[in-house]
């Protein structure tokens, strides 16, 4: 009896982990891997049309080879959209992360009143959905409905045109700064709070001022958080969609292909061409992957090196 018991026991022991993993694996395959695989499949397909394309059976789906990729990569609008998004990101990310770091350092300083209130107040815009935030700001950007422009008008000044030309980048980046600073601040602030107090004590004994502590101790120690928030912001920038889409009906300045994802949406749901939309999506996903991994590889060893 004693010798017969172990084998079955070892067997169930080996199966159990898979049992626990199964729900995750099934969900991952069904909800994630399968749709991505299907999108990949669609990106190699196209419609063939016979005659006027009006009768039954005049439309059939067939293989397209790489033609969807060729047209996606040769469409100047994808490149222009990427360039627009990069300009937007170059304005947004430094300002948003700079403000987030500043607020986090200020909240972490020793003599702060209303700390909890300030933290919530700065974080609150993050709780407002991007579409709602864009609508709110859209009203404020339209000169005839904006109280800001009204006040400027009373002072005899005219406000800047935020919904056309280069003002558009400011308008869009502002919405994202307003909505995103609080989230990034909380990430950095949490990381600041986890720095042991002895470190500060030692610094003060050595005669460091609050400013020196912030610059020489706090910022280097929260560098991993800064890298992480930068990484998130980079991906969010490349995938910006809801803010420009919501503002688009208010202005002539945002085309339907303003950002790469807007082009994907237009191709799939306005033009009804899911095949080229799939190809463009695959290209965007690949580029995002390369940029993300490139960035992580670049800073990963420096930021995380000592911790691993």
């Amino acid at each position, binding site marked *: 009896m004693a010798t017969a018991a172990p084998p079955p026991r070892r067997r169930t022991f080996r199966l159990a982990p898979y049992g626990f993993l199964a729900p995750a694996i099934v969900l991952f395959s069904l909800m994630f891997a399968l749709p991505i695989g299907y999108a990949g499949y669609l990106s190699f397909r196209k*419609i063939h049309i016979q005659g006027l394309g009006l009768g039954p059976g005049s439309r059939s789906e067939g293989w397209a080879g790489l033609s969807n990729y060729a047209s996606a990569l040769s469409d100047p609008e994808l490149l222009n959209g990427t360039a627009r998004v990069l300009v937007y990101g170059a304005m947004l990310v430094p300002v948003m992360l700079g403000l987030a770091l500043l607020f986090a350092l200020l909240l972490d300083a020793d003599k702060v009143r209303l700390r909890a209130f300030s933290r919530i107040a700065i974080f609150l815009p993050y709780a407002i959905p991007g579409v709602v935030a864009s609508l709110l700001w859209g009203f404020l950007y339209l000169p005839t409905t904006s109280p800001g422009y009204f006040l400027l008008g009373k002072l005899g000044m005219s406000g800047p045109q935020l919904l056309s030309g280069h003002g558009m980048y400011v308008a869009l980046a502002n919405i994202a700064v307003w909505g995103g600073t609080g989230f990034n601040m909380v990430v950095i602030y949490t990381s600041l709070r986890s720095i042991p107090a002895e470190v500060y004590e030692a610094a003060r004994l050595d005669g460091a001022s609050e400013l020196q502590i912030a610059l020489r101790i706090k910022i280097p120690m929260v560098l991993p958080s800064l890298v992480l928030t930068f990484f998130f912001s980079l991906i969010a920038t490349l995938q910006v969609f809801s803010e420009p889409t919501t503002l688009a*009906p208010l202005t002539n300045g945002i*085309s339907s292909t303003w950002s790469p994802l807007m082009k994907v949406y237009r191709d799939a749901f306005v033009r009804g061409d899911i095949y080229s939309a*799939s190809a463009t999506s695959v290209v965007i996903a690949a580029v995002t992957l390369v940029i993300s991994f490139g960035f992580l590889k670049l800073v990963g060893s420096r930021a995380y090196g000592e911790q691993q």
Partner: protein
Amino acid sequence: MLSMHRRIALGLTAAGVATALLAGCSSSGSTSSAGASTQATASGPVKLTYWAWAPGLDQVVAIWNKSHPNIQVTVEKQASGDDLLTKVITAAKAGGAPDLVQAEYQALPTLVSNNVLADISKQDGSASGKFAAGIWKQVTLGSNAVYAIPQDSGPLMFFYRKDLFAKYGLTVPTTWDQFAADAAKLHAADPKKSLTTFSSNDAGLFAGLAQQAGASWWTTSGDTWKVAINDAATQKVASFWGNLVKNGTIDNQPMYTPAWSKALADGSQLAWVSAVWAPGVLSSSAPATKGKWAMAPLPQWSAGENVTGSWGGSSTAVTNNSKHQDAAAQFALWLNTDPTAVAALVKDSYVYPAASDAQTGGALATAPDFFSNQPDFYTSAAKIAATTAPAAWGPNVNVAYSAFKDAFGKAAQNKSDFVAALNTMNQATLADMQKQGFKVAG
């Protein structure tokens, strides 16, 4: 801190969102609607589903359901015509399209091309006689087939602030030259006001204006399509509006924005080239101006002419997926030609019926509330509707419309050449047809 592979997973997740979103949406078309129609048995009532966006349609359908216990229709409310188009094509591909669908006229060739709509010429009876020839042609695509029953139409008209026209000494324009003169006169009198705006966010109005000028954007000969969005007539329309925008005598900002509503409400804009359904929009955008507006026929290209275009308008179509096409066609016919149904459509869904008989008398005997100062509103509207020029739609109107938004948005913004924008729109439409594999001549 997050471990390395957790961070990689996050990166993968974020990067995959674009593809997952797309694939997820494209495969989500099949809904319960197909199931509903297959459940009907010989003993039970036939159950039909109807995708539509017109408001109050369920009240009209309730009348049918009460008098037709054997054919029960359920309205499944949709967001808008643009959204419905892609959705119904995707659903039809998956075999799950509803039995009936509300389809805008310009979407019919796209739907037919995607094999979504059934030919109901055997079931339509003598419906063709109940509609103006120009409207009927849009549901047959010029063939012997019948792909839908017309529901409403949107003949273009000129809406203006009567009080402010008197104040600035403007004459109600009967020609486009007078329209331009009015715009210039008003702008000289008060540079802060403009006659109207050129909006790039709804191609339907521009298409209607081109239609009035005699444009035929899509035509066929044999099995070849011809695309002529930049034909002479449309170029005339484009350069007319382009000059007004360039001179600054009209505004260049889009319609349907908070700023636009305010301009209509406070009299910064004095007129709106729009369709018969405009009173509904005006009453929600500028409620305080009730009774100050008047409607006149659309200005003409040459004095003495009497032509208009149309903006919007939709039909009721039966899908190929439907298991009960006879019943569905019977309902579509009833909805758009039966006097009780059409009266309910006018009252509950605020549509301007396409059926000729329904355009006078009945529910249209009195003017809309917002235009109570113009008691003959619908009598005049019926006269104008009768002068609607024929429309010519192609299989990728959606592509042309989205190209219009981008190209004319940019041109309106920069006050640059509208004919160049028109050429861009034409080129984008042509290139899309070539890419799809249509035989097409530019």
